[in-house]
């Protein structure tokens, strides 16, 4: 009764009390308390595996807690399914979008609605919501033609159409350019000022400092702190998140003067498939001891470039790519490895590693040539296990041993294993796509240090990443890839984030600007 007597604003929009959720073998959330006020932007901060996703899945009705209670504006709240959560006024924007490539924006939004509504009415509503929150997008465009940032806007509009009182955003900025992030923050602040609560999941600390009113920090499924991010530094929150001091990677003297170890000259490749990107006349050099970064928004040719470097797709001329002056444009991955080029693709599962294989088998997959694990075509089992064990030990991979299945490792540990597998081969050139994608901060620091150590030992390293902070911290020189074209390189110390952002997003801004005048293709 006392709660009802208090002014409405004092009642938390959502309160979670003593929420516990266990999965076989792991407790995802243990005795978690969380309260989100009306109009508050509340950060949920934690490493991968800290239990953030599980917690919001319970709010959104995808999972049910094992014990504990949830209160919605003071009343007990239960969501047996997401539809019930949406009815309650909860919207969620997932990290991975669920959009049909071949359909247009309105059709995709209509598919996600709980109630049927006429196309013209929906079109009007969508335009109204977009106008209100400054979201620019032509509702008649086909998804396949949209950038990732534009796709995210669809998901946001989809959630906003339901007039949510609580909007959950799961790592929304991981795929956006700096300008797109700014636009998103404007929208979110505007929503909050109208009384909508926002639960903002992230592990990007500076964003939280910039955007959020309060932060709840999770570690190992437990709440370790609730703080005001504006009174904290990214570093202090990072330490709360990890639970110990973490060392910033130590880069020695940046080096761009060594001998050229890898050079690409005028490489063009056609699109691998309908949704792929054609590479257009790409040229660059990487020197011994140098870390060369390639920035860009997802889907601008990064994966195609990695495949072209690793040998998974072949160049049209052998001299398009040279390693230590040896031409290798027409050589496959095994021969390129023998010459000293190792690669780490972006996708861990099913590309860089196979979940159903043991770590020893996964070590054999890409290290067999350089480590001599396949004499006369026969598998050296004990050699592969010893090598896997060496990787586990040297890179502190949390795994039961070389015979553990790769699929049983967490994302961060598997990434450490994959990085270690390539680095311990002592490559002359290492190409890495998204070295710390979905990896917790502790593992990310270890991976960054390993990359730096490799470069300091004289190898040339190419890092393809969408995370600008990572590139700026790590690299000596940077280029931006956009629409399959690579910009001229810039020395990191002499380039501003704004400039890079324009390079990354310039192309897309043009398509947005002209988007309204495009006739729908369907």
């Amino acid at each position, binding site marked *: 009764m006392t709660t009802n007597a208090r002014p409405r604003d004092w009642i938390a929009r959502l309160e979670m009390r003593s929420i516990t959720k266990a999965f076989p073998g792991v407790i995802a959330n243990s005795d978690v308390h969380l309260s989100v006020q009306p109009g508050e932007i509340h950060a949920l901060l934690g490493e991968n595996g800290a239990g953030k996703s599980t917690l919001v899945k319970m709010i959104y009705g995808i999972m049910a*807690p094992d014990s504990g209670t949830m209160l919605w504006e003071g009343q007990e709240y239960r969501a047996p399914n997401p539809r019930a959560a949406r009815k309650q006024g909860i919207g969620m924007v997932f990290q991975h979008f669920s959009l049909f490539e071949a359909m247009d924006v309105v059709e995709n939004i209509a598919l996600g609605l709980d109630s049927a509504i006429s196309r013209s009415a929906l079109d009007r509503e969508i335009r109204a919501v977009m106008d209100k929150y400054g979201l620019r997008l032509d509702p008649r465009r086909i998804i396949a033609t949209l950038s990732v940032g534009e796709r995210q806007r669809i998901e946001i509009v989809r959630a906003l159409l339901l007039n949510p009182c609580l909007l959950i955003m799961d790592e929304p900025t991981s795929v956006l350019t700096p300008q797109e992030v700014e636009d998103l923050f404007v929208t979110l602040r505007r929503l909050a000022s109208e009384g909508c609560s926002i639960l903002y999941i992230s592990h990007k600390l500076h964003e939280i400092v910039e955007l959020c009113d309060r932060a709840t920090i999770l570690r190992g499924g437990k709440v370790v702190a609730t703080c005001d991010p504006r009174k904290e530094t990214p570093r202090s929150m990072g330490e709360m998140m990890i639970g110990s001091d973490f060392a910033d990677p130590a880069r020695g003297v940046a080096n761009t003067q060594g001998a050229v170890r890898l050079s690409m000259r005028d490489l063009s490749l056609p699109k691998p498939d309908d949704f792929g990107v054609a590479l257009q006349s790409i040229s660059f050099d990487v020197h011994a001891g140098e870390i060369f970064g390639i920035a860009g928004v997802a889907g601008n040719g990064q994966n195609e470039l990695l495949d072209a470097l690793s040998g998974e797709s072949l160049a049209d001329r052998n001299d398009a790519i040279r390693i230590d002056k040896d031409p290798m444009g027409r050589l496959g991955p095994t021969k390129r490895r023998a010459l000293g080029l190792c690669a780490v693709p972006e996708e861990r599962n099913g590309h*860089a590693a196979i979940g159903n294989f043991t770590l020893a088998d996964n070590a054999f997959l890409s290290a067999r040539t350089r480590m001599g694990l396949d004499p006369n075509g026969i598998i050296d089992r004990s050699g592969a296990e010893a090598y896997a064990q060496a990787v586990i030990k040297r890179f502190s991979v949390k795994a039961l041993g070389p015979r553990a299945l790769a699929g*049983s490792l967490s994302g961060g540990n598997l990434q450490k294993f994959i990085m270690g597998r390539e680095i311990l081969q002592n490559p002359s050139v290492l190409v890495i796509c998204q070295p710390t994608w979905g990896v917790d901060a502790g593992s990310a620091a270890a991976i960054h240090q390993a990359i730096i150590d490799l470069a300091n030992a004289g190898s040339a390293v190419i890092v393809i990443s969408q995370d600008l902070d990572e590139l700026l911290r790590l690299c000596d020189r940077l280029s931006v890839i956009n629409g399959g074209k690579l910009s001229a390189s810039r020395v990191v110390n002499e380039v501003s984030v704004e400039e890079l952002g324009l390079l990354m997003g310039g192309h897309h801004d043009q398509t947005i600007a002209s988007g309204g005048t495009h006739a729908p293709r369907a």
Partner: protein
Amino acid sequence: MRLVLEKRLEQSQLMLIMTPILSVIGVMIIGVILFDALGFDGFDAVWQLFITPVIDSYKWRDVATKAAPLILIGLGLSIGNRAKIWNIGAEGQYIVGALSAAGISVLTQDLTGFWIIPLMLLGGMVGGAVYAAVPAGLKTRYGVSEVLSSLMLVYVSLQLLSYLITGPWKDPNGMNFPQTAQLTEAQLLPRELGDSGLPPGLLFALVAMIIFAVIVDRTVFGFSIRTIGEAPQAARFGGFKSNQIVWSALMISGAMAGLAGTLEVMQLTRLNLGFPSGYGFTAIIVSLLGRSNPIGVFIAGIVLAVTYVGGQVAQTVVHVPNATAGLFQALILFAILASDLIVRYKIKIKTNRLQVQS
């Protein structure tokens, strides 16, 4: 309360081994019910079908004779299964392999020499492999599904068989019967191994099992097959060429089917219109029931051979129809495909209620 399927994080190794066994047991139970419903003595029918050939030592030679080709073909197919390349046309490669060996026998009718038998065996393998190269070429060059092309080539091989044995290769002294001339002494393997009563094909099957076990488990080639079946993109990353694997998986299974066909010709001493026996199709069940594991395939080959022999026993004793063995083989295939669900999913009983504690 309801039953739900929950995807397992990794395939259950226990279930991988248990499901083939459970499938066979399940099929026995279904068989009892089915034949009871049809008015036969269901228990007796299933007993004669599955148990009599195992406990009656007089039937062992029959079982081994039928098991040998099933195992040989099944081993070849298991390579394709691992790479997820589906050769449905082993029956055709079996026939073409037999035709190649028979062709050599026609040419060497008047010759003697220790080299004739190895030449026939080799010729049979090459014939089967070349025939399987057709779907491989179509797949790698034009993206034609090997399932369709290899299956259709079975019917081509049947026409080829009837053309050759009613025409050019017809036995000149055969009173116009559509069959090739009887194989000579120099073209035949001994009828049995020592005086064990077991056919020579079984020895081939045993040796092949060991070779295949080494290939799939110990060689880079076996590793590449497994990798491409599990994750094609990772195989590419690892430097394995998928086209090469398509070619080798299909040609190895073709060669094994051809070898089985050759041994069968030697067993029957000649080719006739009754030669196509469906071993090539039954071997698909063998490779799946054996989980594409060489030892598993060996055991599965014996199980399926038991149903062939037991089908004949059940016909004479319980008077079930001729098609019974085929029916049970199909049931086993069904059961093994259905049981894959348990390997990949957990069946869970879910309650909708939450335990809320305050």
